[in-house]
């Protein structure tokens, strides 16, 4: 186990205990007549038990190699890019039914092509427009997927 495993181990332990507590309140029933809480209760306990070896393992590693840095799983990761994608997707979900498929998708694609894909403005605008048109024809017209039409009743 490595240093990076410490925090997840705590999360698993907490999650396991939480699941066990909630399941206990759901009624465990008896072996003769098992209730809805029995299975998740056992699983919750199992989950917190499983976190123990990881916890010990990563604590040992940290103690032994205290001077060494982290394994560097996050080194070079550009969090801004990841956050921007997640933010755009959540915003897309929020506005989709209000402004409609065509408009929401067009703006999402521009952000993805331009900012994340580092494409030129003209290229991003053109490609986004083409992709929106084609996907509209393929999914909404041809496959009859009912994407929200939103404003102006297009898409």
């Amino acid at each position, binding site marked *: 186990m490595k240093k990076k495993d410490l925090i997840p181990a705590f999360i698993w332990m907490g999650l396991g205990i939480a*699941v066990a507590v909630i399941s206990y309140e759901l009624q465990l029933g008896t072996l003769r007549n098992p209730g809805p809480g029995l299975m998740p209760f056992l*699983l919750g306990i199992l989950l917190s038990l499983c976190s123990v070896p990881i916890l010990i393992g990563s604590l040992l590693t940290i103690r032994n190699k205290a001077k060494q840095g982290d394994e560097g799983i996050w080194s070079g990761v550009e969090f801004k890019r*990841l956050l921007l994608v997640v933010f755009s997707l959540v915003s897309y979900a929020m506005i989709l039914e209000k402004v409609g498929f065509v408009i929401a998708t067009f703006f999402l694609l521009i952000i993805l092509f331009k900012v994340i894909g580092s494409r030129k403005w003209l290229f991003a605008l053109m490609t986004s427009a083409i992709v929106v048109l084609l996907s509209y024809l393929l999914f909404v017209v041809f496959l009859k997927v009912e994407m929200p039409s939103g404003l102006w009743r297009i898409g």
Partner: protein
Amino acid sequence: MDIFSGLISGFQVVLHPINFLYCFMGVFVGTLIGVLPGIGPTGTMAILLPSTFGVSPVAGIIMLAGIYYGAMYGGSTTSILVNIPGEAASVITCLDGYQMARKGRAGPALGISAIGSFIGGTLSIIGLMFFVYTLAEVALKFGPPEYFGVMCLGMTTVIYLAKGSLIKSVIMAVVGLIMGCVGTDTITGKLRFTFGISDLWDGVDLIPLVMGLFGITEVLTNIEHTLTTQRVIFETRVKNLLPNLEDWKRSIAPIIRGTFIGFFLGIIPGGGAITASFVSYSVEKKVSKHPEEFGKGAIEGVAGPETANNAATGGAFVPLLALGFPPSSVMAVLLGAFIIHGITPGPMLILKNPDVFWGTIASMYIGNGMLLILNLPLIGLWVQVLKVPYSILFPLIILFCLIGVYSIDYKVFDILMMVFFGIVGYLFTKLEYEPAPLIMAFILGPMLERSFRQSLIMSNGSLSIFFTRPIAGAAIGLAIALYASIVFGVFRKARVKVTEIQE
């Protein structure tokens, strides 16, 4: 119905124009996403699952199955020409396939992988028919304790064979089982873990989960750094696809061995196409008279693994069709597709839905034939596809995920779930947790729990029912033995470590 007449009826189903078209679409999309790195068959099947709602179950299943085995064909193309695996099961093909391309032998490398894939693919379907037929007959006598035992054993081998840390795989499986508990309890009707969110009453939906873990996660992992431009394709004009006599002589034995290795590893839960390709490669290297050539462009290193990963797709259908047990996350999605279309795979499938059963099997023969054509004469098309840069590809992947997930139920909630699981999956990748045990446990969870509780009701609360019935007892005994060997192994490793530290 005996196998022969069953197969004939299956071919009649596939040759129906609509089904034929869906089979073609499946293998075409399969090859496409196989060629393209950054999206695999599991995510694609989840994306396209909602688009099969409008057609008959058999057409939908035929198409989704086609995506799976089609991806195995496409994956090798990218491995050979770009040295990047187009699909996880083609990782090992990079070693010798790319070296062959560098020596100007890309043609024969592509040729032998298509031919090997075809042989492995079709032979494994024959094995699949006979195995499903016999296994389903046995499984007809299974009661809840037997199902519980077999599912436990299956989950155990999945955990046992998962790569990386074993305890992490166990955690993933437990988390999957817990997630499977969310929603309305099937026996008492009580709500569990819904936290007042009505969208969770039916439980966590499989499709947003899979699209998040396999679609969005993949995109996030690929864009965490600024994208580099164009990938280098080694040879844009592929010539001499047909291997020469010498190539044939060297490849025929690896192809036959690869078929067997692939088929049987495909059956084992957690084995699957990736493991099969690795095992085949190491076997070929061991039995070879000139192992020093491996890694420098030995055609055996392409022929064996590429055959094995296709044969594994045939094997993977055995537990799914005979027992309703998915041996891998891809098959878990396919199981989801069966259930959504109102069909329960398992021993009753042959009797209740013979058209689906035989249609799917027959479609695999036809599909493999189509794939041979797509991947030999039309290989140039896929080389062009490889030129599409990732900066254009990933917005499309995201868009398909969004449309796919929204079209299940027209709920914004599903989009948010998908994004959430995408982030979770990204963290899993970073922290080295494998998503496969989670997905399989998630889909098996409700079945596992139902059989567990039904068994206890049957036995009046005595746990001995899981040990006294022979099949259930044998399965659970084997599972316990596997766990014991894991624990023993861990202790031994820990002891070695402790002594190392003390010294």
